[in-house]
């Protein structure tokens, strides 16, 4: 298979990286910038995940009920999913523009005053997370909606007769039934977020002052800007490890929730 061919080459090449020296790793872990980047990455992934899953779940619950034009709303809500990362980033730069953007106009209108979100060290990462959520919640929504449609209606009817409130029904019936869908969605989104480059590269480029430099962007920069391929490969491995840790965490947490 062709993808095997590529992956074999990838491993070969990583092995060459290790031969050059394990010191790539030693260097990385003694580098405060690397530790900062890791921390930013984790914040970025967790923040985006909470936003996208929360929003996706809320919309999926609403869209799961039949109402006029629900198909139409579903299409519109799913739309950001097909917008490319480049377009997303540049559109939001334009929306957030400190002098001409409509968002700052609204802020000024309600008396907060314009904020240069992207150039400000403390707001850049939160804004980046928001943009990422805008772009990726449809994915969560689509998968969760598919999950919700597998929940048998009889369960709700039985619970209603027993006098359960809708909040109780959500936690006692809906969540346990679509447990696997939730785990799968979380894992896929985490993989996606940890390895994401384009959005961040075009939106902030890692700045200001490196406040949005996540690990994946670092790999990209190490490779295509500084040509430090060994170091980049080492970071790639760290990203893989982080992915694995997060995946195990989801499966554990949700698995133990099932037993209790």
């Amino acid at each position: 298979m062709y993808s095997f061919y590529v992956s074999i080459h990838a491993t070969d090449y990583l092995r060459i990286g290790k031969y050059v020296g394990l010191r790539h790793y030693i260097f990385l872990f003694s580098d405060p910038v690397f530790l900062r980047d890791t921390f930013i990455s984790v914040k970025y992934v967790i923040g985006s995940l909470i936003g996208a899953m929360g929003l996706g779940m809320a919309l999926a619950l609403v869209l799961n009920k039949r109402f006029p034009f629900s198909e139409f709303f579903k299409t519109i809500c799913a739309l950001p999913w097909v917008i490319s990362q480049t377009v997303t980033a540049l559109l939001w730069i334009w929306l957030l523009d400190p002098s001409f953007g409509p968002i700052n106009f609204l802020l000024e209108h309600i008396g907060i005053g314009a904020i240069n979100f992207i150039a400000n060290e403390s707001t850049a990462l939160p804004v980046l997370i928001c943009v990422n959520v805008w772009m990726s919640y449809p994915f969560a929504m689509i998968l969760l909606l598919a999950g919700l449609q597998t929940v048998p209606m009889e369960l709700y009817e039985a619970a209603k007769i027993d006098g359960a409130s809708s909040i109780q029904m959500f936690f006692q019936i809906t969540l346990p039934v679509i447990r696997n869908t939730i785990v799968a969605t979380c894992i896929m989104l985490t993989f996606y977020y940890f390895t994401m480059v384009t959005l961040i590269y075009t939106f902030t480029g890692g700045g200001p002052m490196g406040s949005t430099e996540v690990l994946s962007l670092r790999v990209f920069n190490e490779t295509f800007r500084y040509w430090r391929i060994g170091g980049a490969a080492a970071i790639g491995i760290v990203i893989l490890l982080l992915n694995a840790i997060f995946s195990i965490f989801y499966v554990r947490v949700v698995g133990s929730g099932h037993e209790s």
Partner: protein
Amino acid sequence: MSIVALSPLVWALLTSLKPNTQIMLFPPVWLPDPIVFDHYKEVIFGSNMPRYFFNSFVVAVVAIFITLALATHTAYAASRFNFRGKEKIMFMILTASMVPVISLLTPLYLVWNQIGLYNTFMGLGLAYAAWQVPTAIWLIRSFIDAIPREVEEAALIDGCTQWQCFHQIVLPIIQPGLAAAGILTFIFVWNDFLFATALTISEDRRLIQVGLYRYLSDLGVDWGRFTAYTVLATLPIIVMFVTLQKRLLKGLVAGAVKG
């Protein structure tokens, strides 16, 4: 919520129709008055955009063709034949798609340079296909699994070869699956930035998303033109998505649930 989902796109559409004097105004002018199409004219006739469009389209076709050719045959084998270690191989194929793209780019770049695929449509198409084949296999397999075996058995008794059986019976039935896999590949190629920046260098091989990014840095930020470009670059995808969304979402879910 629909408003939040749409507003950035609507804003881009509005901006692209404004005359230059109204774009850089504070407070912003909400509706363009008068509506002008100058930016579209500039983008279509005064830039390399049509060329990028064409490039992206060619690469997408190459990628879809390779992806479907590889994926349908593998999926058929995985669905209909039993061989040793089948599930293991299928799982390994899936794992291959979980490797981060960025760590594949450098080896790809080096290998492509050596074998002369760097900066060619074929090289790009192959790279995209390699990335899409695993998902496509699982997606198409779920469609083949849904066909009752009896249909093929009847054909085999009537003297069909396995090969004829696949081409004349299975392929027509799984057309919706092929369409879904094809469209997913198309969206991926059309929206990709990473592969396209890493694997091409010259202007006449540039793809649409890279063009969009370069467009900005080359000319400074000309928002009128930029938003016109964005609208044009996003339109095919949106039209495709809206008309085919049911089939597409079903395919996506089938692929994801199996995965």
